């Protein structure tokens, strides 16, 4: 792995360079202007000169996760026309897809890890894979964390570079740049960068060692526990009662990946899109027959947590949560997944 050291000015130049050939995004510092409809909420397009003002980042995860770059809201699957005079009326067509490389700046380790987790169910998904192919993540490892951060508990680490293409970390007079992938490699090709001094590299390694071995051993007992016990826990009742079943947690969550598919027709032009769905919504599990297996709020609330902490790990191994703490901060009714985990742990301990 190549490691460089750059000055803030060099970072600025680097971003300017990328901007010439790629589409570059950075976390929005405030509400974006409506003028950029090609950008997901919480992110903004970077033009070269603005690069420096975007950095340094605030402590903790970005306002919005990197999910929309891989799993856009919406993704157009197919298009068609219904115009009366067209010979191809009603025929489905693949839309033109952008092949432009997109570079996302300011990604935190927790979000980088979320892409790896989402990749597990989306291994075979051509759209996710295509987006992954053309997206490079340029991240910053966390010098500080918030009280709501709990990545370590979920098997991650604030200092980790896993999943990033370029990982930046703060050093005296600038940044250490770790090149973590081929895409990362490509991003620095052609730039005249100085290798990082050995001292900086070892200091970084020392910090990582001091952070301990990231693992979710504490929670691993959940994986082995009896589903019935967790499912029937009394805690779901009060949790479900408080939950308002909005989709805030699922939409700000980097690892929630559910979708629905719908057709939209405007003035004779149609498209089939897939867009984010949320297991919090009654419609999510509603059958055509009218039956809804998760018709109750409590059932939906339980499903979300058990999916993250039991069903997903049972199927894929890791928990479907990276501990970014966004849902903890933004849940309107203060449902705190850390407390949920505590309660479940307590339950399995009693068992």
């Amino acid at each position: 792995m190549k490691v460089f050291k750059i000055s803030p000015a060099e970072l600025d130049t680097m971003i300017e360079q990328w901007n010439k050939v790629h589409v570059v995004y950075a976390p929005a510092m405030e509400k974006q202007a409506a003028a950029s409809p090609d950008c997901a909420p919480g992110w903004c397009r970077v033009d070269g000169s603005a690069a420096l003002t975007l950095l340094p980042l605030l402590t903790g995860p970005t306002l919005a996760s990197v999910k929309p770059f891989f799993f856009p809201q919406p993704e157009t699957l197919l298009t068609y026309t219904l115009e009366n005079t067209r010979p191809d009326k009603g025929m489905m067509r693949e839309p033109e897809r952008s092949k432009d490389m997109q570079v996302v700046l300011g990604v935190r380790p927790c979000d980088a890890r979320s892409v790896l987790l989402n990749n597990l169910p989306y291994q075979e998904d051509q759209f996710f894979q295509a987006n992954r192919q053309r997206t490079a993540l340029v991240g910053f490892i966390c010098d500080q964390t918030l009280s709501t951060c709990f990545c370590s508990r979920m098997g991650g680490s604030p200092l980790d570079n896993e999943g990033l293409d370029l990982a930046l970390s703060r050093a005296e007079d600038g940044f250490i740049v770790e090149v973590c992938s081929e895409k990362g490699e490509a991003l620095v090709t052609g730039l005249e960068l100085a290798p990082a001094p050995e001292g900086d590299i070892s200091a970084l390694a020392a910090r990582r060692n001091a952070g301990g071995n990231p693992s979710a051993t504490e929670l691993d007992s959940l994986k082995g526990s009896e589903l019935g016990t967790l499912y029937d826990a009394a805690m779901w009742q009060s949790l479900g009662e408080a939950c308002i079943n909005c989709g805030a947690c699922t939409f700000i969550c980097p690892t929630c990946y559910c979708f629905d598919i719908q057709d939209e027709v405007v003035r004779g032009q149609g498209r089939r899109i897939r867009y984010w769905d949320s297991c919090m919504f009654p419609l999510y599990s509603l059958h055509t027959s009218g039956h809804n297996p998760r018709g109750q709020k409590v059932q939906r609330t339980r499903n979300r947590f058990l999916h993250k902490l039991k069903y997903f790990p049972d199927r894929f191994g890791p928990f479907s949560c990276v501990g970014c703490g966004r849902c903890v901060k933004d849940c309107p009714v203060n449902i705190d997944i850390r407390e949920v985990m505590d309660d479940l742990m307590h339950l399995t301990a009693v068992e």
Partner: protein
Amino acid sequence: MPTINKRISEEIRAQARKLLEEGEVAAVLGYGAGSLPMTVKPLVVRRPEDCSKLIWSAFCVLNLANYLPAALKSVEPPRGPRDPKHEGPLPKVAILATGCWSRNIVVQIQEHQVARGRVVVMGVGSRGMVSRRKVEALFPGLEILAVEEGDHELVVRGADFAETINRWSVVRDNCQSCTHPDPVLVDLRIGEPVSERKNPNPFKQVEEIEQQSGDERWAWFTREFSTCIRCYACRNACPLCYCPTCFVDDAKPQWVGKSLDAVDTGLFHVLRAYHCAGRCTDCGTCETVCPMGINMRLLTKKLNKDVLNLYNIEAGMEPDSPLPLTTYTMDDPEKFIITELTPVPRAVKEGK
């Protein structure tokens, strides 16, 4: 001397315990402590011994009326779809309510969502609830780890700072412009009544927008709603939004698309606000719960202003009066009707 809210908390616990012990109600809807500074958790208490969990603070920003219909249902004896209707009186639920929430309960009664006889309103005069977002904005880049609440000030603490700020300055916009802070429906009074506020201009925020040009207003609208992620927290936290299927989920016809298209998102907010016309009490919950900090409240506030000016109605003030869109008078204003007709030269009109 304990703070006002501490005293109110004590009174709530005592009264809730009494109601449950005496079997007057089957459940009490209130708040428990949150896991983060400046948060609370909505709580349904069913056992007297759990009443000690109840609290009252300046951060009780969630409208409890939103939970009332479900709480009432939860204490009813279970009934299958073919079972006969329950005979005799059904258990009651007590609920904490400030001015706006009590008015929402009135609207729920008007709209048959709540039976008046089954609710015990524990009325609390509101001194204005604090906006977590406003407090956080005062400390950019800093994480707040604790907030202590006094009667007129807040002490905000972080890892390496502690600062005292004026309480009213960080009270939510809707509370600052409120004119009816005291509950309009009270079965059990908690604390002292709060007098009506003579707010010089409750619609100031709305008027600021109205005074802009059309293009400016459109720019404001598109900017404001561009960050919406369609999580529907605003809708689901609102006690008025109780439709089993929201219009956004209709397929035939599909009123609004479901992705993040700016038009669909804008339509969702406009129509949702419109559906609250004449029913909204400006409790501010929609705005408070939005994870993206969108001020969608301005739309409902605009409608409240028009309903008041055109029909002299404020939502939820009188349980027996009809809602503005279910009634009319012969001389309702009709300024919006086209009056300036183009007198067309008869030759043109007659095709000559």
